């Protein structure tokens, strides 16, 4: 081991097991003082587990943590705080109804006789905010400020606690490109002030831009640590995934037919804020094509789907399916008009987790004559139907049709939903992040099913956050930014970089002008 170096934190040979899985297997990570150290790995590579160990949320089975060369024990977040370790979590740990100031001081309040000394705290936070260029409105409530400002609040929380080691867990996932640039700038500034930064990401370009060194994990194992200056994105990519895999979907060119879904100037209100989340969106989806809505999370894609499926009332505009106006139709009517829907959240919307698999398979169809007679469910037919779907779509479960949905694996839950929605054989399919959180095998399977639907003449509207999926699967791409469609492009004629510019709002087409032309 290199003892010449000034390591501020060392995690040596960390092993952490969960029932059935070794999340961290002999992982070593050494952080130098004042460096930005990237931790790279795919979803499920063990990054978050390793950070949770460092933060005292999990206890490792084996391994040692050293601070300034001395072994330390971290059993809860308080220990981590005492060692001046702070973390910006992927999902912000903020109290929405509190003010920014209260959020910053929470847990580290200065008190006199038990009373919180907000005036002193305000002075301190204002100083920090000026010094590091972190502009925040201290009296605004967190629920009213932008995601970017929320992240600055999280950073200020760490600085207020005088943390020396700052962990950023996937900090750019929810940010716009401008905000990402700003964050990179802030991180560099923090490092030059002597803070040591751990930057967790799976985005290579960000890592190349900001980090000094990179440690790569794969499937819970330590792959290696390299100096950023001496490596290339393709080398990092190979370390991250193991071999050159590219998710390429075999598909023939689309042969679009007549229009199935027609959306005109659609407005959908937002759940969180008082304005519309979808602001005047117009587009069409035709038979035999996959149209993909791309964009950074939170730009109105979810609300657009809610508006189309009827889960949310539209505040304006018009939706037509095969020429029938369904703008104000209830969900069941839309479903009958021809919409099947693979929902974004399979646990909230897709399944009744406490129902058995067979009960879930007829969630919409139970009132059709094939499954009921005079209001009595035909259990035999439901069983037979489920068994057929299990067979056809390779849904694996412990006890077949009577397995409780809750006890099935995520991949098989999703397969069940996909099977149910495809088998309803309707002209339009809404598929929202259909492969989220699944392994490669399951992803391929579902991609194949979606392409097969297209080839069978169905119209598919796909919403995805994964650029690979967007580029590989779609026949047409619509980019959403802040509730509007800002660009329409052909995946064969565009690049990921160009797509990124649209998603970031840096570029936009005047679609109306084009439509007129």
């Amino acid at each position: 081991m290199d003892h010449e170096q000034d390591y501020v934190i060392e995690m040596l040979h960390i092993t952490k097991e969960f029932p059935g899985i070794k999340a961290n297997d002999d992982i070593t990570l050494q952080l130098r003082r004042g460096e930005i150290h990237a931790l790279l790995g795919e979803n499920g590579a063990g990054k978050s587990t390793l950070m949770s160990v460092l933060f005292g949320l999990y206890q490792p089975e084996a391994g040692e943590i050293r601070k300034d060369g001395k072994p330390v024990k971290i059993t809860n977040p308080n220990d981590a705080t005492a060692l001046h370790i702070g973390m910006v979590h992927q999902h912000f740990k903020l109290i929405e109804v509190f003010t920014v100031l209260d959020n910053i001081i929470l847990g580290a309040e200065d008190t006199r006789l038990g009373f919180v000394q907000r005036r002193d705290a305000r002075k301190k936070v204002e100083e920090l905010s000026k010094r590091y260029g972190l502009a925040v409105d201290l009296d605004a409530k967190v629920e009213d400020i932008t995601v970017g400002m929320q992240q600055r609040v999280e950073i200020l929380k760490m600085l207020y606690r005088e943390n020396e080691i700052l962990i950023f867990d996937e900090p750019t996932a929810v940010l716009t490109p401008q905000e990402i640039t700003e964050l990179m700038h802030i991180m560099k500034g923090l490092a030059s002030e002597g803070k040591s930064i751990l930057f967790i990401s799976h985005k290579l370009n960000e890592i190349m831009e900001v980090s000094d060194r990179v440690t790569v994990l794969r499937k819970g194992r330590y792959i290696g640590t390299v100096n950023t200056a001496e490596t290339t994105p393709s080398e990092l990519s190979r370390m991250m995934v193991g071999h050159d895999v590219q998710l390429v979907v075999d598909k023939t060119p689309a042969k679009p037919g007549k229009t199935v879904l027609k959306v005109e100037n659609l407005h959908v209100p937002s759940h969180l804020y008082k304005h519309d989340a979808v602001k005047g969106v117009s587009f069409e989806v035709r038979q035999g094509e996959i149209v993909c809505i791309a964009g950074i999370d939170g730009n109105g894609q979810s609300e657009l789907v809610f508006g189309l499926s009827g889960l949310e009332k539209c505040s304006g505009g018009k939706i037509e399916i095969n020429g029938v106006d369904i703008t104000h139709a209830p969900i069941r009517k839309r479903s009958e008009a021809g919409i099947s829907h693979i929902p974004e959240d399979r646990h909230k919307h897709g399944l009744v987790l406490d129902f058995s698999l067979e009960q879930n398979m007829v969630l919409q169809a139970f009132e059709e004559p094939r499954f009921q007679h005079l209001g009595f469910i035909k259990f035999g037919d439901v069983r037979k139907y489920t068994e057929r779907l299990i067979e056809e779509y390779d849904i694996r479960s412990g006890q077949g049709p009577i397995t409780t949905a809750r006890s099935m694996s995520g991949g098989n839950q999703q397969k069940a939903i996909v099977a149910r929605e495809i088998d309803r054989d309707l002209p339009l399919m809404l598929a929202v992040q259909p492969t989220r959180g699944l392994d490669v095998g399951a992803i391929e399977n579902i991609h194949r099913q979606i392409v097969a639907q297209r080839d069978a003449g169905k119209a598919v509207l796909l919403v995805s956050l994964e650029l690979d999926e967007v580029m590989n699967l779609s026949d047409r791409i619509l980019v959403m930014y802040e509730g509007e469609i800002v660009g329409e492009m052909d995946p064969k004629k565009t690049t990921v970089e160009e797509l990124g510019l649209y998603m970031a709002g840096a570029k936009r087409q005047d679609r109306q002008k084009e439509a007129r032309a």
Partner: protein
Amino acid sequence: MKKESFWDKTATRSVLASLVAILTGMVAGGLIILIVGLTNPTLGIKGAWEGIRLVAAGLFSTGRGSAGELTFGFNPTSFGNMLFRAMPLVMTGLSVALGNKAGLFNIGAPGQFLAGTAASLSVALSVPTSVLPAWLIWILAFLAGMIAGACWGAIPGLLKAFLNINEVLACIMTNWIAANLVTWFFDVSNLKNALEGTKSGYIYKTSTILNDVVIDGVSSTVGAAVPEGAQMVATRGGVATGKMGLDALFGGSQINGGILVAILIAVVIYILLSKTTLGYQLKACGANRYAARYAGIRDKRNIVLTMALAGALSAAGAALYYLSGNTEFFWNTYQSLPSEGFNGIPVALLAINNPIGVIFSAVFMSMLQICGQKLTELTAYNEYITNVIIAVIVYLSAFMLVIKMWIGKLRSGKAVKK
């Protein structure tokens, strides 16, 4: 697929968990009796021992022997009364269980019970038997009760579905409103019992024969015996549930055919919940309201429907109870709510919301009440100890899942040892 052993089945574990709850409740009740006995010189350890025996086996109590000792044996009257009292509890238990299945905590059963009481009593006592036969009036009164209960139950349902008001709070408020409304309704009605002298706070029993007569130009109501010279206007009352031979089995008790009606309704609800599309919808809404909405199930309609059905069930319990013929209703109820309503909660929870299970847990609850009654009659203790036991059972029901997990662990621990 591996076949599950009997002890690993969810159903077995559920029953075991309920038994644990019952046992804990009984032990808690016994302990309180013991402590009170030991600290109270007039009771002492002997009194406490008597109390504990009555709590455990009051159903078999036959009073005191010649030497003043407690005697036990088969007591047909107690058995009959147990089944009679179980009758309304089955119905309110079904009411709460149905709500729970659909994800709604129906704590409004007391109010619905009162609504049913008012409607069925007023129909039974005001439709003249000279116009319609008594059995038809019984049916009309029963239906009127159910309709009134359904309407009353639908109110919190509507408030929940369309204004998102917590159903628990809405139910509590409608309970107290019902208590005052029913008091007011009977206060201004002519159904108050004035025939039996001091019984002015009561409504006529439905079996009482009432004759509306005109004597010397003045209208009045008299009993079965019509004075000479009175001009008959109408005969009312005389409505009572048929005994169906059950009184022969359980001599001296209040039992009647109503218990059979209650069991029949429980079976109907069981079929409704487990075999029909309606039951499927209600359960889907209860288990995951979002998924139900996603699937196009009309969740708001189902909330209202569930509460209306639950209200009808509670009210049917009231109708069965008060149409028995010889039960009396104290109309001035504005400051207390009928315990049959609240006891529907433990009945449903103990049965883990299974309609067939509700029959058994209702019988158990009414057995406890008989025990409490014996305790009051025979010792210095009182019947409220049974309510303590019931409360402890409800308390344990709140973490039934944890208890089931413990049972599972106990079981797997044994398996490892083998």
